[in-house]
C-alpha cells in the first residue's frame, strides 16, 4: 500500500496542511489535495510546461517536483496571481490581446512570465521568447503571448504609454510584427 506523508505547504501565501502519498508530485498534490486545478498537465513528463508553478520565485515543472521536498518553500500558482479583484498586469494583457485561446497553456505561461518579469522588467521580445520556450502552445502561434508579456512589462514598470500599438490590436497594413 502507498505510504503517506503529512506536510505543511505554503501555497499562494497560505499554509496548507496536506496528507498525500509520499511519491506524489507537486502537480498531483496541488490538484488533488489542495483543490487547485488551475495548474494543468499536458504530459506529466516535463515536456510541455503547462504545469509550471513558482517555487521560491523560480519557475518549476510541478509534474517533476516531489511534494515531499516542498516543505518550507513558497509555492505560487495561477490562482494566486490576482490581487483581490485586480487582475495581474499579465492577466489583463493576455485578456486584451486574446493571448489565451483554448487557455490550457495559459496558467503555465503566466507563471513563467511572472518569474521573467520579476527578474527583468524590460525584456526584449527575444528574451521573452527564450524564457517561454519550455511552455508549449498549440493555438496562438505565440505572437500574442509575447506581445502580452511585453505590454504587461510596461505596466509593471509604470510606463505611462505602456500597451501595444493600436495596430497590434486592430490591424493595419503591416500589422503584428511579433519581434
Amino acid at each position, binding site marked *: 500500500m502507498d505510504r503517506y506523508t503529512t506536510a505543511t505547504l505554503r501555497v499562494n501565501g497560505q499554509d496548507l496542511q496536506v496528507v498525500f502519498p509520499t511519491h506524489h508530485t507537486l502537480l498531483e498534490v496541488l490538484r488533488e489535495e489542495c483543490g487547485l486545478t488551475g495548474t494543468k498537465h499536458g504530459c506529466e513528463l516535463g515536456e510541455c510546461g503547462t504545469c509550471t508553478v513558482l517555487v521560491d520565485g523560480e519557475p518549476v515543472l510541478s509534474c517533476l517536483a516531489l511534494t515531499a521536498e516542498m516543505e518550507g518553500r513558497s509555492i505560487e500558482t495561477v490562482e494566486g496571481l490576482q490581487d483581490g479583484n485586480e487582475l495581474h498586469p499579465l492577466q489583463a494583457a*493576455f485578456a486584451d490581446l486574446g493571448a489565451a485561446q*483554448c*487557455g490550457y497553456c495559459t496558467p503555465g505561461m503566466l507563471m513563467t512570465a511572472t518569474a521573467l518579469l520579476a527578474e527583468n522588467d524590460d525584456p526584449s521580445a527575444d528574451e*521573452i521568447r527564450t524564457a517561454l520556450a519550455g511552455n508549449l502552445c*498549440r493555438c496562438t502561434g505565440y*505572437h500574442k503571448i509575447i506581445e502580452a508579456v511585453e505590454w504587461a512589462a510596461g505596466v509593471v514598470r509604470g510606463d505611462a504609454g505602456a500597451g501595444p500599438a493600436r495596430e497590434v490590436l486592430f490591424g493595419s497594413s*503591416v500589422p503584428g510584427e511579433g519581434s
Partner: protein
Amino acid sequence: MERREGISKLLGRELYIDDVPMDRGLWGATVRSPSPRGRIREVRFSPDVNWDEFVVVDHRDIPGENHVWLIESDQPVLAADSVRHVHEPVVLLAHHSREMVHRAVRSVEVIVDPAPPVLDFRLPPGADGIQHGTDNVFSHIVIRKGDVDAALADAPVVIEGTYETGAQEHVYLENQGMVAWIDGDVVVVKGSLQCPYYVHAALTHGLGRAEDRVRVIQSPTGGGFGGKEEYPSVLALHVALLALKAGAPVKMIYDRPEDMAATTKRHPAWIRHRTGVDLDGRLLAQAVEVVFDGGAYVTLSPVVLSRGLIHAGGPYACDNVRIDGRAVLTNSVPFGAFRGFGAPQTIFAVERQMDKIAEELGMDPVELRRMNLIREGQSTATGQIIRDGADRLEVLDRALDLSAYREKQEEHARFNAAHEDLRRGVGLSTYFHGAGFTGGGEVHLSSVAKVEARPDGRIEVLTSNIEMGQGTLTIFTQIASESLGLEPDDVVIAEADTFRVPNSGPTVASRTVMVVGRLIEKACADLVAKLGDSDLRGPDLKQAIVDWYRKHSGGVLDGAARYEPPPGTSWDEDSYRGDAYGAFAWGACVVEVEVDLRTLGTRVLDVVAVQEVGKVLNELLARGQIQGGVVQAIGWALMEECVWSDGAMVNNQLTNYMIPTSDDVPPIRVDFLEAPYAHGTGGAKGIGELPVDGPAPAVAAAIEAATGTHPRVIPVTPERLMELYDGA
C-alpha cells in the same frame, strides 16, 4: 469587442474535464492491442491482481451495436475477435484509484495470432492483405471536367511530379478526456469534444438507448483542431460502458503517450500530378492522382478525401481536369480530421507542381500563378463558377508587397554569395479553402440554431457549436448583440448540452461563423418578429421582451432558424459536379527561410499571410487564428514527423515529436482583404482552416530557392534535406 471566454481561463478557474471534482467516482483505463493485425486468441488477466476490485468491460458488455457510429459501421467500440491496428481498444478497466487502474492495464495481456499487416498505403495490397471490400479502398472519388486525355495529348509541354506529406499529430495541449455518470435512466457524458451530436449518435447506437436517454455536454476544450471531431465518440462509448457497469461515475483521461499513439492524426498522402501547359505557362490539363492513408477503419476518410480532391487543382482555372483519389486501408491507427481536412495535403502538391512547371518553363513562379489564378466568372475543378467579387490577384500582390518578395530575392543573392554556410530563400504559395460542408453536406445536416429571450430581457443563444480556443463565445455574442442592438452583456451563450441545444452541426470545416452565425442572425429576426414589430432593437426590444413575459407567464419567447442552401447553388454528389462549397476564402503566403548548410536545419525568418475572407468580424480573433494556423503548418512542413513501427507511432512523446516553440516562430504578418459574402454572417466566410493550407508549400519553395534542391516530401527535416543533397 473583448473576448467573452477569457477571464476564467486567466484566473485558473476554467474547469476542463480533468478539473471537475469526482466524488466517489472511478478512474477508467484502456487495454489495447499490441499487434497490428490478427485474431485475438486470448485475453489473459494476471493472477497477481485482485480483479474483484475492478470493473472490467469487454465487447460482450456492449448493449447496442458494437461499432462506432459514423459513415460506416466497421470500427468496433471494443475489438471482439480480431484487431486491425496496434493500440486498438480491447478491454476497459475502472477502479477507485487512478494509479491502480493504470498499473492494472499492464497486467492484462491481449494475445493475438498475427496476420500479415498492410503498412504502406502507397503500394497495392497483396491478396493476403485484403480486409475491406475486394481492394482495401475505403472511398474512390473522381472529379472530371473537360477532356484531360485529349488535352494532355495536345499540350506542347507535359510536366509530371510526385509529392508526399506525412502524418501530423494534433497536440492539443489538453489530452482527450471524459466523464460519464448515470442520472435516473439517462446516461450523461461530459468531456472535451467538438461535436456533441456526433457523440450523442454514437452513444445511442452503441448503448442501444433512445435519444432522450443519452445526454452529452461539452466541457471547456483545451484545443481540438479536428482531433476532437470523431475520436471523442470512441472515448465516450468507453467511459459510458464503464459507468453503466459500475453504476458509478467514471472518468477517463488519456496521458500524452496514449493520446499521441492511440488517437487520430492527419492523413498521410501521396499525390501525382501530370500537367499540360502551353509555352506561356497557361494550364491546359491537370491530371491528379491522390492516395490518402485511411488507417484501419473508414471513420471520416471519405469526407477528408472529398475535401482534399476538391482542392487538388488549386485556385487555378483549367478547362480539362481529372482528379482521381482513393482513401485506402492500412493496419495503423485510423487517420482523421485535422484542421484543413485533406486540403493542406493536396494544396502542398499542386503548389509544388506549379513551382516545378515554372522551373521547367523557365518562368517566374509568381507570373505563372498570376496567369492562372481563377478570374471572376471562371470555374473550379467541380465546375463551380466563382463570382464572389474577391480579387485574387490583389491578394497575391498584397502578399508580394508586404513581404518585399522581389527585394528579398535580390538581397538573398547577395547574402548567399557572401556566406559560406548559410543560404536564404523566399517561397510563395496561393491557395483557397471552401468553407462549410460540401454542398450536399450542409443540406444533409440541416442545422438548427435557436435563441431564447429571458424574462429580464436578456437573450440566450442555443447551438451545439463549441468553443475550443477559436473564440466562438465571443463571436456568437457579437453576432447576436449586433443583430438585436443589445449590449454584449445582454447575450448569454448556452452550454453545449444536447438536453438544451438544438443540433446546429459539428464545430468543424470553418463553418461555425459563416453557417451557424448566419442561423443565429435569422433566429434573432424570428424572435423579434414574434413581438409583432420586426424593427424592434436595443432598449425597446428589451422592454418589449419584459412586457411579453408579463403577459405570457409560463411561456417562452424564442426564435429559431434552419439551414437553407444559398439560392442558385446546386451540387450533384454522384458526378461531383457543381457548387462544392457556399464560398471559398482565398490566400497567398510568402515565407523566407535560412538553411544552415552545416546542420541542414531550416529556420523560418519571416511569414506574410494575406487572405480574403469575406468580412472580418473580429480582427483580434481572426489574426489569432491565422497566426496559430501558420505555426501549425510550419511545424508540419519542417519538424513534425510521426515515426512508425508496425503501424504504431513510436515517437509518442513531446520530446521526440517536436512542435514549434516560442523560439521557433518567425514574425508573422497578417493582412486581410474583404469582399463581403452575401450569404455569410455579416458578409463573413470561414477562416479557421485557410491558414494551414499555404505555409507548407511556401516553406518548401523557399528551401528550394535557398539550396537549389527540390523538396517534394514534407517534413523537410535535416535528414531529408541531406537525402536531397545526396541525390542531386
